[in-house]
């Protein structure tokens, strides 16, 4: 390789690596802000090493799995409440008034946006359904029931609601 090409190669590589490193550091620093939502555990126990907890009244998104058996619908209005959890075991109650997405069901991952009304209750104005990356026909899904889908386990105390 002749010296001029070598020089250009060095300059180009230096620009790309330098920018790559700085953007990497930038994203690392912004890590917590890029997350779309808090998980229930992060909301209950605090997020990151500093265990930052969101303040009551803060607008945020919360994402987790709908706990089976916790969906309560009002008989007279569109009001609904349900509990969300994740692998860490935190439980958060979501209150919502409106039409839920088609994919909403017990055990489904959802992301709700709203206001934190107390330590572990979110009053949501938007509920989005999150689906996983697995695709299969109905028959296969039935045959495979109980495959490695995430199944949370909870203690009685957690299900009674965690008093802070």
């Amino acid at each position: 390789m002749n010296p001029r090409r070598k020089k250009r190669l060095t300059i180009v590589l230096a620009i790309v690596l330098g920018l790559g490193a700085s953007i990497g550091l930038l994203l690392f620093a912004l890590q917590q802000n890029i997350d779309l939502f808090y998980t229930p555990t992060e909301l209950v126990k605090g997020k990151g090493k500093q265990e930052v907890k969101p303040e009551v009244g803060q607008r945020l998104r919360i994402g987790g799995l709908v706990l089976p058996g916790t969906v309560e619908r009002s008989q007279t209005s569109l009001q609904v409440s349900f509990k969300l959890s994740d692998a860490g075991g935190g439980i958060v109650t979501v209150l919502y008034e409106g039409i839920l997405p088609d994919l909403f069901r017990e055990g489904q991952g959802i992301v709700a946006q709203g206001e934190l009304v107390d330590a572990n209750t979110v009053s949501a104005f938007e509920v989005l359904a999150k689906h996983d990356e697995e695709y299969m026909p109905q028959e296969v899904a039935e045959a495979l029931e109980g495959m490695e889908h995430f199944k949370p386990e909870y203690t009685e105390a957690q299900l009674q609601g965690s008093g802070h």
Partner: protein
Amino acid sequence: MWKWLHPYAKPEASYQLAGKFVPWFSVFAVVCFAVGLVWGLAFAPADYQQGDSFRIIYIHVPSAILSMGAYSSMAVAAFIGLVWQIKQADMYVAAVAPVGAVFTFIALFTGAAWGKPMWGAWWVWDARLTSELILLFLYLGVIALYNAFSDKTMAGRAAGILSLVGVINLPIIHYSVEWWNTLHQGATITKFDKPSIDTDMLWPLLLNIAAFTFFLGAVSLVRFRTELLRREQRRPWVQQLINRHSQARG
């Protein structure tokens, strides 16, 4: 080692070589599209959870993968153009950028159309969607830069630097769903594990990815040849080509 490549650095030779690939790529693209789309949209089984709506995957995933594939090829060309200063590399950058931009737009559009019925939202500012949108802006930036200079050597250099710098966005797009929590689900097929999609649904998807790849190849090579002719229009070999064509027609 690279001596065999040297003859293709002649504009005329690369014009002819690109011309040889175009018909093959087009035929493969048409065949894969015909089989893959009909198989995927009509015969593949419906998803257990999303029903028939999941079929948009047969457009969404190939265009998303190829929006990144086109960008990688553009960046490799830009790298070659900057270091070895081969002008055909710059022309390829200019040729592939609009195609990649359209693929990115298709991925974003079909993603929105899929997100509305499944998630409940057209758009969410999560890491995957946002970084893919940035990819679209990178493409538009490359196109704009290339067209902003009347001196095409300068234009190629400027567009090349931007496309090379933008490469940083590719791993961010790919890993966004792992590094951060997002509404977008994780990778189904572009991972080292076994694909998390049933085989009956996977085959048409792979066929569609192949179709998009050949389509991308064919369209960018046609555009490359046009760009080559436009920039070399005063050269004798282009004049000869024009004379031969007009004689054949007249």
